[in-house]
């Protein structure tokens, strides 16, 4: 694997460590952390800072029966975590992604497929996985808010540079990028996306009303 060049902005890692990112964005950042020791180390330090802040907070009085209620809950709980979701069918995914249910692959155009990743949505923001053939462009989509992309396999290029496995790109409403796959294998990437995908071409326009992603 080539080394990771593009990492999330410091303030994005801070928002992840603090827990203020939306769930779909946090899932994409968590997958990046599994691939990038440098980002992971910084996040560990920001989490340690969170721990220190938590420890320094003044306590707020709990409800009178709080401890009793808690002890009753752990006794009833039996100490077992809820059944974990089964692993999904993509064994090569980074560990944080293995237990998200994956939707069926859907055809978006020549060489272009997409499947949903079962991270809880936040408004319109959700996680999609794209597989895009060599030389193809990413499908166009409307940009509402921030979009985060993590490359899992292959690579693409846009005006911000070349993005390979583990690389992370953040685009906001001002960005109008059209990445082109420049690897000789399909580019597999994970995207936290707010906007709607616009299918191009005649067939795309014909099936558009039926595609809800």
């Amino acid at each position: 694997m080539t080394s990771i060049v593009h990492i999330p902005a410091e303030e994005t890692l801070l928002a992840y460590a603090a827990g203020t990112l939306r769930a779909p964005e946090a899932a994409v950042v968590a997958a990046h952390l599994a691939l990038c020791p440098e980002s992971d180390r910084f996040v560990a330090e920001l989490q340690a800072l969170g721990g220190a802040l938590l420890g320094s907070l003044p306590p707020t009085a709990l409800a009178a029966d709080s401890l009793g209620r808690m002890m009753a809950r752990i006794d009833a709980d039996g100490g077992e975590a809820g059944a974990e979701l089964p692993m999904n069918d993509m064994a090569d995914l980074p560990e944080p992604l293995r237990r998200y249910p994956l939707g069926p692959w859907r055809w978006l155009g020549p060489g272009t497929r997409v499947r949903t990743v079962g991270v809880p949505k936040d408004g319109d923001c959700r996680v999609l996985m794209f597989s895009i053939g060599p030389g193809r462009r990413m499908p166009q989509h409307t940009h509402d808010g921030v979009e985060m992309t993590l490359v899992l396999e292959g690579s693409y290029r846009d005006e911000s540079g070349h993005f390979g496995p583990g690389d992370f790109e953040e685009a906001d409403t001002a960005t109008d990028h059209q990445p082109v796959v420049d690897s000789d294998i399909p580019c597999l990437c994970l995207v936290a996306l707010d906007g709607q995908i616009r299918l191009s071409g005649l067939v795309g326009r014909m099936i558009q009303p039926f595609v809800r992603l």
Partner: protein
Amino acid sequence: MQQPDSAELGRLIEAVGLNRDRAAFARLFQHFAPRLKTYLMRAGAAPSAAEDFAQEAMLTVWRKASLFDPRRAGASTWVFTIARNLRIDALRREKLDSREPDITELPDDPLTPDAILSGADDTIRVGSALSALSDDQARLIKLSYFHEKAHAEIARELGIPLGTVKSRLRLAVIKLRSLLSETQ
């Protein structure tokens, strides 16, 4: 009762993980639950919702205690990450952050030497890096742990554009990162 220090908190978590030790768990609850409640209230949650959140987080502590590894993170850091993960879900479900935070209620507590010293080594390092930032920078970073929308409040309070607050925060985190890499 005296506040347990970080090593003691770590031993309590291990006792829960190894022996399902209820007394150890009760002590952890008494230490962390009131602080978790404060954490969520400062993020904009109502007291009853913050109390429920503290219970959920502590239930996760009970369930996952056997996964705690004191070589990887201090006790407070481990509990913080549990709360953080729950909060990402809670933000989505209940839109905890839909309430405007009152910036005058947001924390301005210094990270006291006690709090820093009670942490594991990583916490000490991070705490001292934070204290090397300017007051404004440290404040911006600490606010980020409670409320992302606090940025808009700061912008209004200081009469500067939101973009300026964001770029100041960015500079502050970059500085923090370089301070941390110097001490490694």
